[in-house]
């Protein structure tokens, strides 16, 4: 039984489409500006990662792992990047890393302040929550269609789709972290006459930092998971390799590009979770737990 038998079909899709068309026309200049900024940021990040000789980049990334966690992660990172080089995916991996870094940075720059606002105002929280649910559960491919229409093929639609998809945990974890801060400690700030900005900066943010860092980790992991999907929009990097392997049934290429994604994922995950446990509050809590 089709819906038309019980009533007229709702042309929801058509409405959305005409809405997108209208937005594209009306805000064309704005979108061009956004596109220019996104492409420039991506190019800058990619240049930073690919213009030095590969061994310099490998050394810096491994040293970062060593500093964040210890020699095991340092050596592991080194081996991982050598494998990526060995299967000739280095340039693609760096393009994907640039995409992840730019998208995560923008998603956090939007998400953390929004999370702070939501934590301070219940109405904002109630408004933001369903929007985030929508953004996170809508199949990620669906974003690509209007985004490609608006931003045309290339890096920009991949970045925008990634940012939308990865935004939610940044907001949620920030809100949760700040709401979880011991009420008495916040009260102490008020009781000694600290203004709200100071309480946010010196009490709420530091005490929420372990939770916010877990959100940062999630944002980065979700960005990486969008890498393959954004390949569909023609974004350079490992995603495009996977997509082309899929369309030519090239098992070898598909596996090599996929493995490079896994190595990047493990690297980014371990680094961000190590950084989370280095915040002053996390350390103080570890000291308490050790007693």
């Amino acid at each position: 039984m089709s819906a038309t038998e019980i009533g007229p079909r709702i042309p929801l899709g058509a409405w959305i489409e005409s809405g997108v068309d209208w937005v594209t026309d009306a805000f064309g200049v704005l979108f061009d500006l956004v596109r220019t900024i996104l492409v420039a940021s991506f190019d800058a990040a990619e240049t930073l990662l690919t213009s030095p000789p590969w061994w310099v980049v490998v050394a810096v990334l491994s040293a970062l792992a060593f500093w964040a966690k210890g020699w095991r992660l340092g050596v592991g990172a080194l081996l991982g990047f050598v494998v990526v080089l060995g299967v000739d995916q280095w340039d693609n991996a760096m393009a994907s890393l640039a995409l992840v870094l730019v998208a995560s940075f923008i998603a956090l720059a939007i998400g953390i302040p929004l999370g702070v606002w939501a934590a301070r105002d219940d109405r904002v929280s109630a408004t933001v929550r369903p929007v985030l649910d929508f953004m996170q559960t809508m199949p990620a491919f669906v974003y690509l269609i209007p985004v490609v229409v608006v931003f045309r093929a290339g890096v920009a639609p991949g970045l925008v789709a990634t940012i939308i998809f990865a935004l939610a945990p940044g907001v949620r974890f920030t809100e949760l972290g700040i709401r979880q801060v011991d009420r008495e400690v916040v009260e102490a700030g008020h009781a000694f006459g600290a203004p709200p900005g100071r309480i946010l900066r010196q009490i709420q943010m530091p005490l929420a930092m372990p939770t916010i860092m877990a959100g940062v980790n999630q944002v980065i992991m979700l960005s990486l998971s969008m890498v393959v999907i954004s390949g569909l929009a023609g974004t350079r990097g490992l995603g495009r390799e996977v997509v082309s392997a899929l369309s030519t049934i090239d098992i070898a290429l598909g596996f090599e590009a996929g493995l490079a994604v896994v190595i990047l994922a493990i690297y980014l995950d371990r680094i961000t979770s190590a950084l989370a446990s280095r915040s002053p509050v996390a350390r103080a809590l570890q000291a308490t737990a050790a007693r």
Partner: protein
Amino acid sequence: MTILAADGVFKVFGRRPGEAVRQLRAGASRDDVLALGTPAVIDASFTVEAGETFVVMGLSGSGKSTLLRMLNGLWRPTAGTIRLGDADLGSISARDLRTLRQERVSMVFQHFALLPHRTVLENAAYALAVRGVDGAERRRRAGEALEMVGLGGWEDHLPAELSGGMRQRVGLARALAAGTDVLLMDEAFSALDPLIRREMQDQLVELQQSLGKTIVFITHDLNEAMRLGDRIAVMRDGRIVQIGTSEQILSEPANDYVAQFVADVDRTRVLTAGSVMVRPRAVVVVGAGPRGALREMRDAQTSAAYLVDRNRRLLGVLRDDDVLAGQRRGVETLAELTRDEVTAVGVDAPLAEIFAPSAETPLPVPVVDDDGRLVGVIPRVTLLEAMAPTESANGDGSGGTAAAASAPPGRTNGTLSAPATAVRA
């Protein structure tokens, strides 16, 4: 001089607080207006004089914490006025309120509310940092406050490295360093172990004698209220049911509720061993040998000592003559020289159960925890004193505030002279 004055103060949480207040004023009971909101404080009026320790006592849910939080504007009253000095806390602007908190009123919290990632010194200096006092001056004043509460030398530690009692000392130092004349204390000692709690109470009384702050102290513990308070307000279900000195509350309870509370104080079944015990004077660890045991007794100027093992578990009582005789005979292990003449009681044992053990011996009755560790002792005189607050209160006759300030009748343990810096092992 009146520092704080509350007049007809209501605080109702919920959807229609204004209507709830109107009905409460018209005589409705707390339960009648629950559909409109939850009345936390109902028609509270009192004044606090300069230099006074004013205790608000009530069980949990009686509204005492809400009342306290209205005294520094953390909550605004739904109706009624609260004045701190010249300022009306109901209508003051947010900016003036912050200034008032920085300069006039500070607060000590039940769970300490310290910043875990800041050092003890930085925590103590928090109020000064907020006020914009420069670095050197800030460190100097915070250091002085820490010295005052007996935490000199701990400046660079993190709160996590301190015991509960020491953390609350930091909380107290933070409030003292602020240099405000009014101190609000919200169940400040309730989260601490009984002996530490009493040390803190004694220390607060001492500090109060030298500093003369105006203190509003919230507690659910009547003994604590009696020890600290010049005057006590008893709260029940949001209402203040009686305000008076401890003598007045004990001898002229305003209604059955207060009477019941006070009756409980007199009853030996409510006071526990843990609440009256004092530090044992002479404790000998089993490895010390007869010579060590005798030295310990001589230093403590007693003729008997408690023998414990390495984990502080009580093994028995040593008498000086037994130890001397044993030493002559060449006995090396102290365990052979103990007597079984004292019976230990548990921390939670009511005083009623301590009379029999106390009558058997002139020695203080040892108090042990669940693991059999010696945590304190009860000398007979302490037991008798704990029984007698009502009589001594009546003996004072007039029940004047001044008399209560110098010697609250509930303070039975003047003998407890533990150093302020003592730390829980």
